[in-house]
């Protein structure tokens, strides 16, 4: 069968000694940083981009993916032990996970989270492998106008499904697109918005922007918060759940996986919504809902499975269509571009070893996380004692050395400072930096397809409506945007996301 053959190719790539090592390294580094409260997965990946540049693209992406799901995993550990979500998708785990830890069942909570995540990861990997080819074949039918509209829809959905102000997010996406225009125009060779400054003649460097508005800006924000940590003092206890605990969690894990996998496919923050949806579902289905919040194992198993399933399936739009659904995937797309791989449906045919190797490595990575992390949990607990006053100088120096090592430009070091401050101020006036990165990553592709579509249609802008695919995609975008701005829907949307906060 085609699928098995492709997965075979994938495993042959992923099982090479180098890629296996990189996957392990990514998982370990990801867990390490995911465990540390105050450093999210986006900042981590942005910070570590430079070290992957010396690798081949497949190895680099395998490692970056490992960092991502390792960070998801580490975030849950922190959520259970410290009651602080190491990252956004682990918020819900703090409720029952930490309650379990308080009752001396921290080990069981960690164990069931790991098992649930592993199961969900396995299913999600199969879903990616199965959906990969059909989706790319569909996308191959797209002409420039359709592709432009697809990107518009991707950005609109990312904005609408992400919570927060829609208009502000649209403004940030546009600002990102505008920033991506800085530098030499590919078609005419004219220098745009460079003010004659040679440093930015080649455009604004993706890693500089990402490291600035995520890495450095995060430090500036965190410096304002006094941190309180409440590490569970109780012993962790046994890690492996017993038969009764397993049978209690089996169905929540199944339901969580399904919910998470579906929501993860959506742009925006599908991966974040999954755990919340799963928690709500488990609470509704429980015979005795009052146990939730008091350490119900279903409240850990379901959301954790949903969390991991969503994290994996959110790779699908990025890998098959080249459309990053969230900021982490935008970083992956940026990394691909740096390696000279144009993200999009052609990746699967032009770089099959990269595509399938990455998918296979996801499953291996999940297995590694399961096998390595549970025994190492004592080490992670120790890490939790590292205070932020030692962490931020470390991040700062790592960012500076990393960004300098890419181009040996001291202006790059100064630029991450500049973008860091901009990112800090943006949040102060109510703008989120993530949509900006999405717009920046897609800007160049959008412009190219827009121009091409107009050339092909001989300057007729109606091409975006007369092509049926494009028309449908644009219609969905307009309807979604319109709905999100309707007062009644908006109120409900705000409520959903307020709950998620």
């Amino acid at each position, binding site marked *: 069968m085609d699928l098995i053959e492709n997965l075979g190719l994938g495993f042959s790539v992923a099982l090479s000694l180098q890629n296996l090592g990189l996957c392990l390294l990514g998982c370990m580094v990801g867990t390490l940083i995911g465990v540390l409260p105050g450093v999210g997965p986006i900042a981590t990946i942005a910070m570590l981009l430079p070290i992957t540049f010396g690798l081949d693209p497949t190895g680099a992406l395998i490692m970056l993916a490992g960092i991502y799901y390792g960070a998801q995993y580490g975030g849950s550990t922190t959520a259970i032990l410290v009651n602080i979500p190491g990252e956004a998708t682990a918020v819900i785990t703090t409720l029952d996970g930490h309650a379990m830890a308080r009752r001396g069942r921290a080990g069981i909570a960690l164990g069931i989270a790991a098992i649930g995540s592993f199961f969900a990861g396995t299913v999600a990997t199969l879903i990616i492998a199965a959906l990969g080819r059909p989706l790319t074949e569909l996308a191959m039918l797209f002409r420039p106008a359709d592709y432009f509209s697809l990107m518009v829809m991707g950005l609109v959905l990312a904005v609408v499904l992400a919570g927060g102000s829609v208009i502000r997010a649209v403004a940030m996406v546009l600002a990102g697109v505008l920033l991506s225009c800085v530098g030499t125009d590919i078609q005419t060779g004219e220098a745009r918005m460079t003010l004659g400054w040679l440093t930015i003649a080649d455009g604004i460097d993706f890693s500089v922007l990402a490291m600035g508005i995520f890495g450095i800006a995060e430090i500036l924000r965190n410096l304002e918060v006094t941190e309180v940590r409440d590490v569970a003092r109780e012993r962790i206890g046994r890690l492996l759940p017993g038969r009764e605990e397993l049978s209690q969690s089996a169905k929540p894990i199944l339901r969580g996986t399904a919910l998470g996998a579906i929501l993860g496919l959506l742009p925006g923050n599908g991966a974040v919504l999954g755990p919340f949806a799963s928690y709500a579902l488990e609470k509704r289905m429980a015979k005795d809902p009052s146990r939730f919040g008091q350490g119900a194992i279903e409240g850990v198993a379901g959301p954790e499975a949903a969390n991991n399933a969503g994290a994996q399936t959110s790779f699908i739009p990025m890998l098959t269509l080249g459309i990053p659904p969230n900021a982490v995937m935008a970083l992956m797309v940026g990394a691909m571009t740096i390696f000279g791989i144009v993200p999009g449906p052609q990746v699967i045919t032009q770089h099959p070893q990269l595509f399938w190797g990455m998918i296979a490595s996801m499953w291996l990575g999940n297995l590694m996380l399961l096998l390595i992390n549970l025994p190492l949990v004592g080490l992670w607990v120790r890490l939790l004692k590292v205070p932020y006053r030692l962490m931020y100088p470390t991040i700062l120096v790592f960012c500076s050395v990393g960004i300098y090592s890419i181009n040996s430009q001291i202006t790059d070091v100064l630029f991450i*400072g500049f973008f860091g401050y901009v990112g800090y101020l943006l949040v102060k006036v109510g703008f989120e930096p993530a949509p900006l990165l999405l717009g920046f990553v897609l800007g160049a592709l959008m412009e190219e397809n827009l121009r091409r579509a107009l050339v092909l249609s001989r300057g007729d802008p109606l091409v975006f409506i007369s092509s049926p695919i494009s028309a449908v995609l644009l219609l969905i975008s307009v309807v979604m945007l319109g709905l999100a701005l309707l007062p009644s829907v908006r109120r409900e949307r705000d409520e959903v996301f307020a709950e998620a906060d």
Partner: protein
Amino acid sequence: MSQDLSQPPTSELTSQRGHHKGGLLNQNVVGGACLIGLAVAAFLALGDISSGTLRSLGAGGMPRGTAFLIGLIGVGMVVVGIFRGGEAIPRVSLRGPAIIMLALIVFAFTIRPTAIGPVTTPGFGIVAAGPLAVLIAGFAERERDWLDLSILAAALTAFCILLFGYLLNLPMPAFPVSWLDYFPGWTQRQVMLVVSGGLLIVALGLFLIRLQRKGDV
């Protein structure tokens, strides 16, 4: 923590009817003004680059279109902010960001020689730029433990030299070029090992002092 799209700092612009908490300088007015500023700056920076025609879109087409939309949203936000108010702008701290920026600037100008007008900055390499950045950044917090910071500075610098310079072979000055004279016949990579070894010994020594101090208390 994480900057996922999920954590909205504010609610929708117009849902704040009756909340005039921010005064006139609320998030909507200031945010909108920033967007207008960005749009105007883009139009100015584009100068006379042609927008082209629909049939053949010029280099200025896409940026001008985007800037126009940004400006439009900006105007809308300012109008909403004036008539309906908006969230207040949280306090913007000066100390932390200023010190972090200073640390980055010092790092940038000590890592390799750079000519600024008639003055050329000394190029010390990471061996000095790293510790300097750590120690300066330490001032961003009100309380700091110099011993802890020094241990971190030495160990982290050694780690960076080993990882970026030695293992990944990335082009970066680890130490001042003149140091090579002290090691005739040695290659750069060998000296890197010596330098990072030295730093690790310093870190270890400081760590032992720290242990002893804790023992005294």
